[in-house]
C-alpha cells in the first residue's frame, strides 16, 4: 500500500482536469492506496455541499431527467469507497480559498488546511501529482 498526494486547482464544471483527477483518486483507492487530496483555489468548491441539480430547459428535461452530476456527490462516493477499501482518504481544502469563495459548507469528511498541509502530505507520500489550472 502506498500513499499518493494529488493537488487540484480547477473549479467544478470548467475543466476536463476535474474528471481526470477524480478518476485518479478513484483508481488509487481501488488499488488499496491511501490518498491525500489538496484542493486549492477554485477546486475548494468541488466539495461544496450547496451544489444543486437543475433542469435542462433547452432539452425540456426535468431535474430528475437531467440528473446533472455534481462533484460534491463524487467526493462523497470517494469517501464511501475509501471506507469500503479500508484505506485513508484525506480531502483537504485550502482554508483561505474556501473563505474567499464562501464555500465553507462542505460534504462530510472534507477538512480545512493550508499549503503547509499540502507540503506535509507531499513529504509523506510515495508519489505526488499537482494538477495546475491553466
Amino acid at each position: 500500500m502506498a500513499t499518493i498526494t494529488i493537488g487540484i486547482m480547477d473549479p467544478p464544471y470548467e475543466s476536463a482536469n476535474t474528471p481526470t483527477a477524480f478518476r485518479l483518486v478513484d483508481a488509487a483507492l481501488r488499488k488499496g492506496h491511501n490518498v491525500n487530496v489538496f484542493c486549492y483555489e477554485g477546486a475548494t468548491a468541488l466539495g461544496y455541499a450547496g451544489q444543486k441539480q437543475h433542469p435542462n430547459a433547452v432539452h425540456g428535461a426535468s431535474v430528475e431527467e437531467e440528473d446533472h452530476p455534481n462533484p460534491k456527490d463524487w467526493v462523497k462516493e470517494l469517501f464511501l469507497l475509501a471506507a469500503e477499501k479500508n484505506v485513508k482518504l484525506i480531502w483537504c481544502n485550502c482554508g483561505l480559498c474556501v473563505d474567499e469563495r464562501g464555500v465553507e459548507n462542505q460534504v462530510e469528511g472534507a477538512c480545512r488546511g493550508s499549503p503547509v498541509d499540502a507540503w506535509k502530505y507531499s513529504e509523506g507520500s510515495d508519489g505526488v501529482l499537482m494538477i495546475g489550472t491553466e
Partner: protein
Amino acid sequence: MNQYLMIQSKSPWESREVGHFYALARELRQSGGEVTFFLVQNGVMAARTGANDPGLDQLLGAKVKVLADDFSLRERAIDPESIKNGVSPSPIDQVVDLLAGGAKALFC
C-alpha cells in the same frame, strides 16, 4: 535510474506548452531517466495515425514510453487500433502504479 511520469492533457494544436513538454521528456530520457509519457484528455488527439505532430513523432523515436488514456480515446471516438505505432492504449491505473512506485510526476 530516475523514473519520470509526464502527463499531457492538451493537444499540440491548442497550446505551445506541449512542444516544451515533449522537449523536456526527450531531455530527461537523454540524461538517463526512464520516462513514461501519458496522453490524456485532448492530449490523445496527437496519437491518431496521420496526426501531424512532429513533436510526438520525435518522442516515439526517443525510447520514451508513450501511453494513451483508454477513456480519453473512447470519449473522442478514437479507435485504439488506429493510433500511431509506439503509442499504447492504457488504463489510468498505470498512472497510479507509477505514482505509487515513486515516479516524479508532472502534469501539463
